[in-house]
């Protein structure tokens, strides 16, 4: 019998077999790591990926030490749900030059949270554009930095956000608030996925005259 101790939380159950991904995207200092830390069962860890930019997947770079490479560092946290499923949360740099890495690193992600600072909305334009282009479902979460409050309508307008993309306010320092952001994302994913799986109830058509 496994006893539930704090140490136990640091390792996964021996039956864990399904890793899931959610990516938190945002500009520098917007609170990505704070959000990850709020919900993660482990202290967020940092690692990095090195990739060649041009010719990735085309050139055979094996043994070519001089090939120029770019390194991107990212944070991640973890939530294990049950004996099988474990969710990894990745804090991804939103800067434009990292995005070719993002596509590869986070392929297979369930969806994304775009974390924005309402004082610097323009920082998120590129990330949102890229996610839309990529077809990755996402929600937008405004991290509350105590600045002047903006109405959701104004934020939507400034971000040119499609109506179906959920927009939520959050405090990334709060576990409950960060949890709610993730729930909003997964509920959104469910609506995106649902039509392919089961028919959505349609309004009854007007009877033909």
């Amino acid at each position, binding site marked *: 019998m496994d006893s539930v101790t704090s140490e136990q939380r640091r*390792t*996964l*159950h*021996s039956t*864990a*077999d*399904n*890793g*899931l*991904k959610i990516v938190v995207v945002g500009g520098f200092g917007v609170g990505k790591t704070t959000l990850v830390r709020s*919900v993660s069962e482990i202290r967020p*860890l*940092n*690692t*990095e*990926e*090195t*990739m060649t930019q041009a010719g990735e997947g085309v050139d055979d*770079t*094996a*043994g*070519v*030490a001089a*090939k120029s490479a770019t*390194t991107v*560092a990212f944070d*991640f946290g*973890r*939530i294990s*749900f*049950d004996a099988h*499923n*474990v*969710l*990894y949360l*990745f804090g991804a740099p939103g800067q434009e030059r990292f995005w070719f890495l993002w596509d590869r*690193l*986070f*392929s*297979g*992600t*369930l*969806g994304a949270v775009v974390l924005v600072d309402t004082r610097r909305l323009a920082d998120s334009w590129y990330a949102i554009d890229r996610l839309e282009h990529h*077809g990755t479902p996402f929600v937008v979460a405004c991290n509350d930095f105590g600045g002047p409050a903006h109405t959701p309508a104004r934020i939507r307008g400034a971000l040119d956000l499609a109506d179906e993309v959920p927009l939520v306010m959050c405090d990334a320092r709060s*576990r409950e608030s960060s*949890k709610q952001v*993730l*729930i909003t994302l*997964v*509920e959104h*994913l*469910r609506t995106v*996925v*649902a039509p*392919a*799986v*089961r028919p959505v109830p349609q309004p009854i058509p007007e009877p033909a005259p």
Partner: protein
Amino acid sequence: MSRGRPGRDDSPDRLYTLTGGRSRAGSDAFDLVTLVVSESDPVPGMQSEHAAILRMCRLPTAVVEVAAGLGLPVSITRILLADLHDTGRISARHPRASYRLPDHDILEQVLVGLRNL
């Protein structure tokens, strides 16, 4: 994390030493969240990184956690994992979710899991 970050600060030469000169794994078998499990114990004479991976993965451990634990870039970690996988010293549990169509049941399980946090 008391040890340094060889991947970032040292000469790249060191990384090529670790991987016998290779700069990428033979396949994309290891996703960031592929869970790795040791199938054997370290043996004397084994490359220290290989031994460290086998100790680290006695319980399932994601590729990205292995990389963070080793203090090495993910790409280098993948090559080391491929070595161990090719010789049957580790097994890999790959993510079931496929791009663009997360399974409805999986989403339900994630939702339940999040609500129970």
